[in-house]
Structure formats: structure tokens, C-alpha cells
């Protein structure tokens, strides 16, 4: 049987636009079912705000089943809140107790400017993918799928990396605002597979260089892995660094020949 949480105090970041300074506002809320998800609790608060004639709190969300990567939120200083391996949309109120104070903030990173309230702009992730996060294979020219055998352990490792949902929790959790976990996951996914070998070194160089234009540097804190709702391993960062070093040598040699 569900029971209801009382006397929750929410301190929520409100900011009217990118150029506004922003501030915390406190809301007290009662009668929240512990079956509700965290975002459903915010829905209830928003309905109340609308009833009071106030603007609803803006936050990003969509699939609410932990796969689209749209939702975000720093909850009590933790990206996606206190439950490990769980995106905010699958965090439920049974994690909290009556009387709790809950601080809700947007992702904080220079590369993710705040749009409004709890919503940020993560377009820099798209720029990294556009720089090289693909295999060039125009529609129509592909050979039969079974002509390219992929050993199961390789396919599994590529899949481990490919599970990244692009939410940005890794960046938000990083004290440097680095995007190495996100970038390395995509690079590892494609660089591990036989189909990805042709562009392996141009890919890593283009993507890392684009990443560096927007994001801070990695200093091996490991906060990203701890915050990742999909448990992406920082081993992929090591792999990215290795490929990047090799790429710099190879691409320098290629330059010397021209």
C-alpha cells in the first residue's frame, strides 16, 4: 500500500532566462504518494503553481523510462539524485522521507548554459557527434550484414559503451565540467567494431578536438562513472586517450608525407 509524504521542502532553482542571475525558491508540498516518481512530484507542484496563477517550473523530460536522456536535475547535489544507476525520471519518492529538504538545481557546467529554470542547453554534445561520431556508410551501399563477423565479446563491449543516453550527468558531476565519459563512450562504441576501423583515428582526433572547444579537461576524478545512470565505465576514457595519442602520431606522419 502506498503512503504519503508530508512536509517536503523543495528548494528549486528558478531563472527566467539565460541572462538572468537566478535564485532558489522554496516550496512546501504535502500529500505526495511514495509511488510517484520525482518528476511526477514536480508535476503536482506545477499544477499547484498554475492553480495559484504562477508560472510552472521548467524542466526537461520526455520518455520517463530512463532511455531518452532528456531529463537531468542535480538533486541534493547529486546528478540524477541519490539512487545509483537511475535517471531522474525513474527515481521514486519512496527514496525520500516526510520532512526532507530537497535541493533541485539544473546541470551546472559552462558548456551547458541554462535556458530557463532547470533546463539547460546540451547542444555541444551534438557538435561532438557531428564532428566524427558516426561511421560513413551512405544508404544503399552496405554489404550483407553477416559478411562482417563481429566477435561476441567485441560486440558486447561496443554495446556497453553504446548504452550512453547522452543526458550529461557525467559533465554535471565532473568538477572540471569535462565531457570525456560521453565522448569516449561514443568513440569506443565505434572504434571497437570492425566497421569503425577505417575512420578510427580521424574520428578520435576530430571528436576530442571538438570536445576540447566546449568542455573542461579530465583529471581522473571518476565522478562521471559514479553519476552515470547507465554505469558507463571510465575504462573507455583510457581507450580514447590511447587512440588519441596514436592518432596524433599517425596523422603527423601522414602530414609529413604530403
Amino acid at each position, binding site marked *: 500500500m502506498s503512503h504519503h509524504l508530508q512536509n517536503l521542502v523543495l528548494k528549486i532553482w528558478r531563472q527566467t532566462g539565460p541572462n538572468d542571475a537566478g535564485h532558489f525558491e522554496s516550496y512546501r508540498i504535502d500529500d505526495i504518494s511514495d509511488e510517484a516518481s520525482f518528476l511526477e512530484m514536480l508535476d503536482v507542484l506545477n499544477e499547484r503553481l498554475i492553480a495559484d496563477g504562477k508560472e510552472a517550473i521548467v524542466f526537461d523530460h520526455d520518455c520517463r523510462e530512463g*532511455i*531518452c536522456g532528456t531529463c537531468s536535475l542535480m538533486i541534493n547535489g547529486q546528478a540524477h539524485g541519490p539512487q545509483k544507476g537511475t535517471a531522474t525520471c525513474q527515481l521514486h519518492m519512496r527514496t525520500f522521507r516526510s520532512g526532507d529538504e530537497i535541493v533541485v538545481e539544473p546541470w551546472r557546467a559552462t558548456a551547458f548554459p541554462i535556458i530557463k529554470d532547470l533546463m539547460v542547453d546540451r547542444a555541444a554534445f551534438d557538435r561532438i557527434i557531428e564532428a566524427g561520431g558516426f561511421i560513413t556508410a551512405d544508404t544503399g551501399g552496405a554489404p550483407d550484414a553477416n559478411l562482417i563477423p563481429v566477435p561476441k565479446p567485441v560486440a558486447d563491449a561496443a554495446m556497453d559503451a553504446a548504452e550512453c543516453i547522452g543526458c550529461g550527468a557525467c559533465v554535471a558531476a565532473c568538477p572540471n565540467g569535462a565531457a570525456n565519459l560521453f565522448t569516449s563512450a561514443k568513440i569506443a562504441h565505434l572504434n571497437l567494431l570492425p566497421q569503425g576501423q577505417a575512420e578510427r583515428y580521424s574520428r578520435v582526433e576530430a571528436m576530442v578536438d571538438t570536445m576540447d572547444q566546449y568542455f573542461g579537461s579530465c583529471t581522473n576524478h571518476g565522478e562521471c562513472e559514479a553519476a552515470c545512470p547507465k554505469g558507463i565505465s571510465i575504462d573507455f576514457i583510457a581507450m580514447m586517450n590511447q587512440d588519441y595519442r596514436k592518432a596524433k602520431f599517425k596523422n603527423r606522419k601522414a602530414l609529413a608525407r604530403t
Partner: protein
Amino acid sequence: MTDTLTPPAVAADPKLQSKIPAGPVAEKWDAYKGSMKLVNPNNKRKFRIIVVGSGLAGASAAATLGELGYQVDVFTFHDSPRRAHSIAAQGGINAAKNYKGDGDSIYRLFYDTIKGGDFRAREGNVYRLAQVSVDIIDQMVAQGVPFAREYGGLLDNRSFGGAQVSRTFYARGQTGQQLLLGAYQQLARQIGLGNVRLFNRTELVDTVVIDGRCAGIVTRDLMTGEVASHAAHAVVLCTGGYGNVFFLSTNAMACNVTAAWRAHQRGAYFANPCYTQIHPTCIPQADDTQSKLTLMSESLRNDGRVWVPKNPDESRAADQIPEDERDYYLERLYPSFGNLAPRDISSRAAKRAVDSGRGVGPLKNGVYLDFAAAIGRLGFDTVWERYSNLFEMYERITGEDPTKVPMRIYPASHYTMGGLWVDYELMTTIPGLYAAGEANFSDHGANRLGASALMQGLADGYFVLPYTIGNYLAGLLNKPIPGTDHPDFAAAEQAARDRFARYVSTKGSRSPDWFHRELGKIIWDYCGMERTEEGLNKALGELPALYEEFQRDLRVTGDGASLNQTLEKAGRVDDFFQLGMLMCRDALERRESCGGHFRAEYQDEEGEAQRDDEHFAHVAAWEWTGDPMHATRHQEELEFEAIHLAKRSYK
């Protein structure tokens, strides 16, 4: 009111030309490709194509059109194309590769899809879908989609509902995610190369038709509220289905019917809106604040046993209820398929169990899916290995461990087979306006088989539309098209601004979500899993009244000149109201049961759906006349040349 409920006149409509090529079904697509007009590579850059939506259909179409050399603009209301709801598909994608050597073929996939759709889809379209399914797998593997592999490195397959062969390719429980990321990456490459322009956080608010041809779209920038026009030679809507009309569904929160509905209002016929799919295994609603429902993969029914207590007043915990006081109703009613009965049949059986007062859980709104027998037979480790992802997800959401307490499940709105009417070329009844993926109606008839949505989205976007659109564009070569300075664009922009201003200025007392919930309850109660003439008439009485209240009593806080999610929602709910009325009218007029459309009046003595092929072997295509309650129903007769109509039995 009564005049709207009499059967509308049936008119043979010259617009409903399916353009299916003549000849044997297996040769139609080749015949089409051999005779269609082409656009020379150097001329492609002279054409601008707008693609709305960036899911599987939209991303694959935009990327491919960009590769071909067209100027492409792609629009999404998300922050990134990678967020589209194709991403949430779990199970897999079908293809007639016959890698298992178990007797699969293009014809068999074609036949299974027609039968699964209860003989309400076009043969020509479905055969083509089965043909190009094999190319999809090749394309996605070349792009690096990490499909599951055998130890030898070859691709693995699994079986799925409605088929007797293993033809489903999968990537763990996240096939939709991996396919969408593949298509997104290909699109991102075209964006990086400058062949495709991306407009993110931008929503379509109108389509513009000038001189009988689609001339472009009007959009609203969700960040600034700015309304703007975009002219093009052709527009492709890949904007998904309308399952969120039920409020509670497995769709993402932002999924909506607005683009399709605006096209409908500008002249595109809307086909078979009553064909909606209710998926049997979702987590039941837990309380009144629930915002969406989460699917649990159908694969769980391989080892889970579905039951409810025999006694409606049962109050004991599940494990305290003795075997002889349990009703394993699927095993009882469908002995040969048992717990693996198809989606529509399992859904209705669950509804009947709950309606008889024997539902389980705190709200008595679910049925048990019990793994105790499987754990006893196979051991805990084996069962855990098969389903641990799903068990963990279930526990995250409900707080219950399904290896100790039986899972609770209940059906939920999941997919819509109806959509914009399109011909063989995926063109709507508006020349130059195309619809692909779930947004069109074409391939799944009255019921979609599992693992076929991903297949259709990618088939349309990769291998159908890029061919057929050239056949239209070739005729426009070197002809001027109206620009955004045309007065019809200005008028559409003004209409959109007025509409959003009206939502803000109504200043009533109820939020868009409140109205959406109320709308959803009516649609779910009367146009959900089981429909009756009486119930549909009741809905058609209640909906206009509630819609009138929406227009009078809506409250949107904030303004239209900056990001305002409440305002966005108001526009979407407005369109859902109108679509909901059309859905109920379509369900009322289709006086038969077929696939996902079950009319209680039309069932056999065993309670199974009873089709009426003599009167209803047709597509119902609705024409907008200014009000959904007065839309005109047209018919496209379905011709079956390769397949004989048969009763769809899974007993």
C-alpha cells in the same frame, strides 16, 4: 448531435488513388522503381525538402535525402534529434533474412504482417516492407549498430509474437535506442557536412498549401515563441503516433498529433484513427498523479504465468492463495497459445478479469504475472539471467521484487496503426506532403506485430521515400515555388499567433494537464480495449462538451514570448480533443471487430473478434470539413490478390 451519428455518405473519392503498381505482388516495387521519374544528381541541389521529426523515419529520411544531394531542413521539438521516442523500443526489429534457416522468406514476413494486421492493410505496401527489411539490417550493421551476436560473430535472432520463425534482430533490451542512435549519427554527419540544417526545439504549428500543393510549414521556436515560415518543394511528416490521446500511455510525454492534425485540417485525409494498439504487459497505474505507463517487454510472458484470484473478495497476499483458488485465465481460455496469446487478445482478457472485480494490487487494477513456477522449474539463476534488466526496472518503479512477489501488469496504449492516409509513394492526399513511420497508416492494418514498428520506420525513411519523392520533384524542376513572402504563409503565421495568444488570454481555472487527463479517461473508457455503440455515442456526447469547457476555462500561466511548457501542452491537448472525436466516430462507423478495434457487438460465441469482410474490407479515410464531428468518411477498398482472407485464429 444526432445528425452526426448517422452513417455518413460513402463517396468514391478521386483523391484516394493508392497508386499500387499493376502486376504480381512480388514484382510491384521493382516495376515502380523501373518506371519512376528520376532527378539528376546535379539537379537535386535545386530542391529543398523539409523533414519534420527525427525519430527512425525522420532521421533516416533526412540523412538519406541529404546524402543524395537535396537541401534538407529537419525540425524537431526536442533539444537533440537523438531524443525521439523510437528510442524506447525494447524488443527488436524484424527482417526476412532467414539467417536461422528456419523457413523464413519475404513472402512469410509479408503474410504474417497481413494476418497480424487482421487483413486490413494493403498487400502492395506490406510486401515492399518485407522486401526492404533485409536491406535495413545490412545498412544498420554497416553503421555500427551493435546487434546481438553469436559466438562465431554472426548475428543472433530471437522469436517474437505472431511468428513461427526467429527473424527478430536485437541489441539487448534497447534495440530502438541503438537503431535510433545509428540513424541519428548518420544524420549528424550530414548536419556536420552542411547538407542538412537542424532546427531543434522548434515545433510545427501549421502546414501551408498553395494552389493545391504543399508549399511549406509554419513553426514556433519553443525557446522564444517566435513563429516563422519555411518554404520547400516537399514536406515529409515523420511525427509519430497519437497514443497520448489516452493521457496515460507508454508514449513519451511530448508525443503529440499536432503535425498530423494540422495536415489533416489543411486537406490530408486521416485514415483508420480507431486502430490503436493496447499492449498487454505494462505496469499498472499506481496513483492519481501517474503521468505515464511503462512497458515491460512482452518476452516476460515466455516464463511468467498470468493469473487472478477466483474470488473477487480475495484479500490474501499472492503467495497465500492456494493453487485451486487461482484462475490462470489465458491458459484456460487459449490452451494452445496460453500465456503467449497475441497482444490484443491478452489485453482484452486482462480487462475482463479486472472488470469482473478480480483485479490485484492496492487499486485492484492489474493481473499477476508470476515467475514462481519458472523459478521452481528452472532455478532462480536461469530466470534471473533471462530477465534481470526487466526485474530491476520493475523494482525501481514499484519497489517490489518480482522474484518474491508476482509482478502486476495491465494493458496500456502503446502504438497507433491509424494515421495520415498515404498512397504507395507515401504521399498524403495533399500533393508534395508525405508521411512516414508511425505518422502514416499504411502497413500494420488493424494490429501491429511486435518488432515491426522499427522495421517500418526505417523502411520508409531509408528505402521508400528517397525513391518516391524524386518521382514528384522531377515534375517541379525549374518551376518557381511560392516563397515565404506569399500571403498564405503570413495568414498561417497569424492564425498560429492568434491561437497561442488565445490560450494565454483565456485565463480560466483548469490547466492543460487537467483537461488532458479528463479527455484521456473518456477515450480510455469508451474507445479503449473494448468499444460499444452505446459507449461511443456517450463519448461523442461528452467530448464536445468537455472541449467547449477547454476553450472557455483553460488556464495557461506565463506568456507566449518565452519558453513556456504549459503553453506548448495547451496546443497539443487542443489537437488531441479533435483527434479524439474523430477516433470515436471512426470506431462507431466501423461496425465490425478487427485487430485492436474490438466492438463488443461483433464477437463470436467464444468472445473472439468477428470481422465483416463484406462491408469493411476497406480503409476509412476521413476528410476535414471544419469540425471533427462532421468529417466526411471516404473508403479505399482493399484488394487481396496474393492472400486469401481468413479468420485470424490463435487458439
